[in-house]
């Protein structure tokens, strides 16, 4: 009896320790970035694009990178969404019937999930060269979509799997087709979870530097068309930190603050949306 109680308290202590570790790391990262970034963050930084020689300490801001990152991540996420939702629905038993093909699809997604993003970047670069296209917004969006698809699909699939079979049977018994059931019942029930999947993928997309390093390029201008090169926050942070000038290096921290805020705002919006739809969910 005594042993079981000790066992219980050991595991409780371990749980608290890991919790402290996780929250502590987050607070530490955010703290360092805010501490070093906030003093440098200025209105100019978020409203002006880089003037020539920004990285050499000249004036201007990183509006080009902010807008570029939003374009890239939003574009990539939207593209990935349409593909992922189709794959995730297909992986459901009623569509794929649990065949070998669905197993293979899952395996491929898991491998893609584990693939380092620089590999996506290099792959995208080769494809761009092959088609004689320059690094552009479109190239970046496509590579980011590829990077996001495995994350989004697997998250969505897990959520769809949780939808009770009773709900589907009910819809079928009312004479709904498979498509109507999927869209109007399963989709509705899974909506908050699907949104979370999208959010996860967006977070990964907006923060990734390696995959767009070769494919999106870098420029001081805000891209006007899909075929223009574009700047992005992760690469802006990387380039600013790589300069030998301390005043430019400090701006990297300010850029990181902006990136953090964007991710935070998108999370909050998604959570609010999800909450709105959770109301109707059958538990």
């Amino acid at each position, binding site marked *: 009896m005594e042993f079981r109680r000790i066992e219980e308290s050991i595991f409780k202590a371990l749980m608290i320790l890991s919790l402290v570790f996780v929250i502590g790391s987050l607070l530490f990262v955010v703290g360092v970035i805010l501490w070093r970034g906030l003093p440098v963050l200025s209105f100019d930084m978020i409203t002006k694009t880089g003037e020539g020689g920004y990285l050499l300490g000249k004036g201007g801001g990183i509006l080009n990178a902010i807008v570029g990152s939003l374009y890239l991540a939003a574009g990539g996420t939207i593209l990935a969404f349409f593909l992922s939702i189709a794959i995730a629905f297909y992986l459901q038993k009623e569509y794929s019937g649990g065949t070998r093909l669905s197993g293979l699809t899952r395996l491929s997604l898991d491998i893609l999930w584990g693939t380092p993003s620089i590999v996506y970047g290099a792959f995208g670069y080769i494809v761009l060269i092959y088609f004689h296209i320059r690094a552009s917004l479109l190239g970046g969006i496509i590579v980011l979509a590829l990077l996001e698809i495995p994350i989004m699909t697997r998250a969505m699939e897990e959520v769809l799997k949780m939808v009770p079979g009773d709900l589907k*049977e009910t819809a079928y*018994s*009312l004479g*709904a087709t498979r498509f109507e059931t999927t869209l109007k019942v399963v989709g509705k029930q899974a909506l908050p979870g699907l949104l979370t999947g999208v959010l996860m993928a967006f977070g990964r997309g907006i923060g990734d530097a390696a995959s767009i390093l070769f494919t999106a390029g870098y420029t001081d201008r805000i891209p006007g068309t899909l075929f223009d090169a574009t700047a992005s926050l992760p690469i802006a942070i990387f380039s600013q930190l790589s300069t030998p000038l301390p005043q430019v290096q400090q701006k990297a921290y300010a850029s990181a603050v902006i990136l953090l805020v964007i991710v935070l705002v998108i999370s909050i919006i998604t959570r609010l949306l999800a909450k709105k739809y959770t109301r109707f969910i*059958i538990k």
Partner: protein
Amino acid sequence: MTETQISIQNLNVTYNGNHALKNISVEIPKKQITAIIGPSGCGKSTMLKCMNRLIDMTDNVTFSGKIIIDNEDVFDKKTDIINIRKKLGLLAQKPTPLPMSIYENVAFGPRIHGVKKKLVLDETVQKCLAITGLWEEVKDRLNSPASQLSIGQQQRLCLARGLAVEPEIILCDEPTSALDPVSSQHIEQQLLKLRKDYTIVIVTHNIHQAMRLADYVIHLYLGELVEHGPANDVFENPKEERTRAYINGTMFSDLKIDKEVDLKGNICPYNFVLAKQALHELSKGKVLKLVVDDPLAVTEVPRGMEADGHKVMSVKQINKTDWEVVIQKKE
């Protein structure tokens, strides 16, 4: 005899090599309540699932035979399943509201079948909710989530939702087993009201419910059709011993026992004498339960009691050696 609504011919179902329904042939009468009774796992729900082809959702299942509804074979590949399902409303064991508002739940069926006009939908929703007695309770919160209703209300909502599709037949799969007594009674009353317009097939393992509701009874046991016929005939005078045993077994398990006597270890005829003595002490119409372990007593005690004019209500084996005999003293 009335018209036939559903004609089942040589129905065989196998799950994972397990023969769940064995060559069932039975006709279900129109605009009556048909109860399918039998213990758990005897294939009652499977039979319902065959009728609306929800059996398709199950893995590793094979079926053969015919189910004819309005001259259409449900199992025929050419038959439009959507059309069949539209004809057969389903009331499941556990209330299953859809993840939407109360209004949208009822409007779901008509909407997918092409009703677009708001006015028509409003009217259907009100009508169906009124039939199930839910309208007054929910008319002010039609747009709140269906999951907020009480479980009994949810089941009535499900019934209303089924009715909105305008089915001819309502299939009920133990529709009250998850509900409290008051809600169960509510559902039963509604089913009785609906009988004049719909053919109702109800699966139940509650024999009392079957007695209260059914016009026609089908008794399944381990996938076999044991007996079927008009409710009065089956309940009053079952032809099959198994049906009699099932009806008695379930009916008297919750009967009020006035006296209990343990006769284990006594041999015949002493146990019979002791049983008579015990019965003698009771007043008329009271119920005596005996527990015996002598194999001879299992047949001889009930026989002797019946010869004396008392009523033997059930004889049931309760474990490897012991039997339970329930006797009611003659009036």
